């Protein structure tokens, strides 16, 4: 434990996380570095299976016992008391105090993280009671207040229903209410708005922005939606095959994507060719060819090389290091400066 108030809120260095499975060891996260400041929103985008959720579960230390484990690296977290702790080394009892209090998380799958046998109001109230020392009645009032904050209609009545009686989007808003009930210093949101329609999504993003201004929380925001990234992020990290392959301020990433994978992502966004459509053509998107990395059998060198149009022999020889593109912008591609050539 060290005392530094200038340290970032969260500082991940060389994080490695592995799973033991029947078919052998799966290395899901292969050396991730990431910093988040208070009041900052960092978006993590990337291939499905690239390790985004596992990275966030590692920070929360919520990896399945005996199956998943952090095998290397540090996760330095600056708590409300100004103390910096390495979450990798914290005992489980300390983690229990941090989780759902200083750091809270909105999970990708609302149905598996809500208790199906308990009324939603009681679940939120329990979180508030546990971490904020509220009385039972105060906690229930807080739960209703949080439900109305996330635009659940008739919050008093909705607090009384079970998760399966709500639509997918409503369950997601319940999760968000639960995560924000404790005014966390760091909010980890794993695809928080994926299940929501765009009008509610916009309201939730506004809500997160407002709470961020009010309580200065840092946000780690995992999403597939590059529109949402443009809307909410200050900084973006792009993941591929268990590594961060590009990181930049949001505007720089959209202006000068400097990794072939990032370029592929931006190019595969749907755009309608009205002339072709009028001519009755069945349109195709520019998907990145090939398959995601099989973590049991990763390629040699750059993880992206089997799918990359720029790959050369040197790309297969070694994993490229992070190379500086401009201040605050780095890429894990040895050919980044030639991509436009």
């Amino acid at each position, binding site marked *: 434990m060290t005392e530094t108030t200038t340290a970032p809120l969260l500082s991940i260095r060389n994080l490695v996380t592995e799973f033991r499975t029947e078919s052998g060891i799966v290395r899901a996260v292969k050396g991730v570095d990431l910093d988040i400041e208070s009041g900052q929103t960092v978006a993590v985008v990337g291939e499905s299976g690239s390790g985004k959720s596992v990275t966030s579960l590692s920070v929360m230390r919520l990896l399945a016992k005996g199956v998943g484990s952090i095998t290397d690296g540090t996760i330095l977290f600056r708590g409300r008391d100004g103390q910096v702790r390495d979450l990798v080394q914290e005992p489980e009892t300390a983690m229990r105090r941090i989780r759902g209090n200083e750091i809270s998380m909105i999970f990708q799958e609302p149905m598996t993280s809500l208790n199906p046998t308990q009324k939603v109001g009681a679940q939120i109230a329990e979180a508030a009671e546990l971490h904020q020392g509220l009385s039972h009645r105060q906690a229930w009032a807080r739960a209703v207040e949080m439900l109305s904050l996330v*635009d659940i209609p008739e919050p008093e009545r909705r607090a009384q229903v079970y998760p399966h009686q709500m639509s997918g989007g409503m369950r997601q808003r319940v999760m968000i209410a639960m995560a924000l009930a404790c005014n966390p210093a760091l909010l980890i949101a794993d695809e928080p708005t994926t299940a929501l329609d765009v009008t509610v999504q916009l309201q939730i993003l506004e809500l997160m922005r407002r709470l961020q201004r009010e309580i200065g929380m840092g946000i780690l925001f995992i999403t597939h939606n590059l529109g949402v990234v443009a809307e909410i992020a200050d900084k973006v990290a792009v993941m591929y095959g268990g590594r961060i392959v590009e990181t930049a301020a949001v505007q720089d990433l959209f202006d000068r994507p400097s990794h072939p994978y990032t370029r592929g992502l931006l190019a595969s966004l749907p755009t309608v060719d009205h002339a072709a459509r009028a001519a009755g053509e069945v349109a195709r998107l520019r998907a990145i060819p090939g398959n*995601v990395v099989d973590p049991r059998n990763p390629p040699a060198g750059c993880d992206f090389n089997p799918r990359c149009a720029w790959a050369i022999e040197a790309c297969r020889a070694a994993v490229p290091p992070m190379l500086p593109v401009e201040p605050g912008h780095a890429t894990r591609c040895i050919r980044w400066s030639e991509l436009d050539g």
Partner: protein
Amino acid sequence: MAETLVQVSDLKVHFPIGRSLFKDGVTLKAVDGVSLDIARGEVVGLVGESGSGKTTLGRALLRLIEPTEGSVRFDGTEVVGLPPRDLKALRSRMQIIFQDPYASLNPRMSVGQIIGEALHLHSIGTRADRDERVGDLLEKVGLPRTAAARFPHEFSGGQRQRIGIARALAVNPDFIVADEPVSALDVSIQAQIINLLQDLRQELGLSILFIGHDLSVIEFLCDRVVVMYLGHVMETATAADLYTQPRHPYTRSLLDAAPVPNPRAKRDRIMLKGDLPSPINPPSGCVFRTRCPFAIEACAQVEPALETVGPRHAVACIRQAELNLME
């Protein structure tokens, strides 16, 4: 115009809530009088507020939920009230891709068993044929053939969604309800899946009801779009018309709220205010009126009917003729 494959008329799905021996309870009108047609080979998008009844409608079409009232005709056969044996035969022609890839895959079954289950159920092929087909399907959705031996928990969210798609495709259906099949996928895999759906519709003449929230995906993929709000259809039009000439204030607010992948794009938006009304106690008249910036007194009095305003374009708004939403 191609022949109609699915014809839905005045469909209602009401859920009783809180009913017990001692209490009367209330009724939640999840779907309340929806009519729509889907032609053979057509892809129809279904968008709308979370909780507006999209999933319920999609499931009711396949009788995974019992409709309360109304009719669903599939290729000429009335599905509502069809006896179980006939329904089973029809089921192999209608499949669903579920919204939640976590809850919808049985954790105790291997991926191969999950995908092969329907083949087994409908006694299609020998065991070896079925294994072969499972492998082909895995490749078709971009997973290695070896994935068949593994279990759902070993896959990420997006990978699981692809397993769900492979399962739906296994029996060669004519019609698929795709409930947010790409919402959980990153955009490059989303693009692969969309291309896959485009291939399938071209090769197999597949009809799809595509439920989604991403308006750019819907615009790209769908021939026609149906916009729902609180169990009712607000507007339906060809994709081209809906995006360039929305006629319903709710449609306009949806288009406004869609995030665009450009941090510089700061736009004027009609941002919806207020709470979603409850489907237990929906507003009188137009169900959208409590959030509509253009609502007048008359909107509380009459329930607007879907009015035809152009070729294959219909709107349920009493003020549609006087509003110009494209300003």
